[in-house]
């Protein structure tokens, strides 16, 4: 009954692909899944692009511009911060919430990928999508007149990296404790609330007094203000970086403590 044809292929015992190949495959899978999902693309590219063009070309919102500042100078870095929030927080929270319910996290935990590989792949997938967002939205911003300081690319990238860690950890925390429907509602609500009053697109300076101070301490405000500073004069907003590092540390610890895989 043992058929030579059937056993000849089983010479090599099963083994995992190398760690980097597994994580790269997962990152590719995650980025591909995000970019194929219509709602995600709406959230991560279409809405930020509309906000960008709408606010840069009109004066419907008071942006509290300083003398000589153009709307696009304030709005373009803010929209990039909004794009990071969309992908790293809102998109990740919703996707993780539903993946948790449908058992995707459990199934992937049994594959050679494992939980650590899944987490690493997700974060890299988010970063890959962010690169696509920055390229596309940056091109739109330049087309409507944005002229950022090229030196600001480095501090900007650093802030995006740390903000991604903080926002992804917050997304996992949210997705790990609430039902997916609640995650969907909360994540979208937070996105809309931070868009309006989180220091993303509308600078903290244009917000009412005590609120402005608070916004500087939010991850959204820190990222928005930090990217504005980087694009304006190419310098690193150290306070913003420290705020984001603190959020990343606390959120990662909390997610580690409360996240549930099933």
């Amino acid at each position, binding site marked *: 009954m043992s*058929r030579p044809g059937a056993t000849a292929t089983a010479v090599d015992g*099963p*083994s995992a692909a190398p760690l980097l190949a597994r994580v790269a*495959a997962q990152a590719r*899978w995650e980025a*591909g899944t995000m970019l194929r999902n219509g709602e995600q693309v709406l959230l991560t590219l279409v809405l930020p692009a509309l906000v960008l063009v709408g606010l840069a070309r009109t004066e419907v919102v008071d942006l509290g511009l300083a003398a000589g500042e153009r709307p696009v100078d304030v709005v373009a870095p803010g929209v990039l911060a909004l794009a990071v929030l969309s992908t790293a927080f809102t998109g990740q929270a919703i996707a993780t919430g539903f993946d948790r319910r449908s058992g995707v996290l459990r199934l992937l935990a049994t594959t*050679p990928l494992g939980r650590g590989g899944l987490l690493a792949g997700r974060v890299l997938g988010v970063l890959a999508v962010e690169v696509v967002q920055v390229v596309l939205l940056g091109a739109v911003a330049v087309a409507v007149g944005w002229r950022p300081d090229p030196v600001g690319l480095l501090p900007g990238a650093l802030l995006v990296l740390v903000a991604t860690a903080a926002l992804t950890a917050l997304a996992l925390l949210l997705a790990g404790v609430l039902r997916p429907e609640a995650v969907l509602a909360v994540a979208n609500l937070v996105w809309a609330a931070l868009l309006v009053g989180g220091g993303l697109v509308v600078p903290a300076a244009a917000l009412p007094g005590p609120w402005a101070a608070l916004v500087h301490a939010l991850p959204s405000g820190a990222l928005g203000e930090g990217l504005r500073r980087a694009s304006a004069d190419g310098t690193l907003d150290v306070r913003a970086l420290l705020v984001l590092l603190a959020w990343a540390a606390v959120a990662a610890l909390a997610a580690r403590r409360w996240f549930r895989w099933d």
Partner: protein
Amino acid sequence: MAGRGAGGRAGGADLDSPAVGGPPDGSPSGAALRVRGLVKRYGARTAVDGLDLDVAAGSVTALLGPNGAGKTSTVECCLGLRRPDGGSVEVLGADVLRAAADPDHRAAVGAMLQDGGLPTSARPLRLLRHLARLHAHPRDVDALAERLGLPAFARTSVRRLSGGQRQRLALAAALVGRPRLLFLDEPTAGLDPAARLVVWDLVREAVAEGAGVLLTTHDLDEAERLAQHVVIVDGGRALATGAPGVLTARSTASLRFTAGPGLDLGPLRQALPEDVVVSEPAPGSYVVSGDVDPQVVAGVTSWCAQRGVMPDALSVGRPSLEEVFLDLTGRSLR
């Protein structure tokens, strides 16, 4: 050469004795899975209560039990998805928690979970290719997909697949890494008969290549056809274990027929020897058990003839696994 010698075992052989097949790599006992005294509690409720379980390389062990018997908890403990509260679980010769932490060990274990675990927005072939990339020596994805008829719905997202299509994709996902130990949690639930045969063929092929399979099922026919070893569980405990043929041979022969419900069995009981028991376990379904000999058969049929009752589906024989199961648990599987 993992478990190659174990492929030729005839179905129905008694596996109560230790496995006789060639031991797989890294597992001196030849056991793909060895569970001893497994306990799993959720708060005050004990889901698995001291369960013993073995899966030999190159064979199928079926875990049979009604809903809530502890089957899925057992599978989850064996996959490292849940931490056991007691007992030991050895997967391919290594402790389960150590095995679950090792990517190469996970590569050697395939799982088809009951909740599927397939990402709902994914397209089948893209998902299968992705899972294959996690392995160093995966199966040929196109050939596997072809066998399971996946190309017919390759462009449909998992969300829109029928239950049977999802099952087939989940099985492909479990097989893609050429596992040496395969967990199948109700693999053919919701499949049409043709798809079921394909699944059985694939499981037999994996077994012929030396894989050990732990199968949970409600389908006793499936257990009888596929498994060399059956463990009947209820309340988290093993009620009976053995080869399907051994389990059914434990019971005596019986005569069964169906007729209108509620027949007066009193006269029949009087007409038959005292040690023969007559019962109607379900309305219209009659069982005569004990020392069923030609005299008893004649007694039953003449009693029917006197009353003008047609004994439909009249049969004499050993009980099926389903009947053994019913006797042990007092519950129906379906």
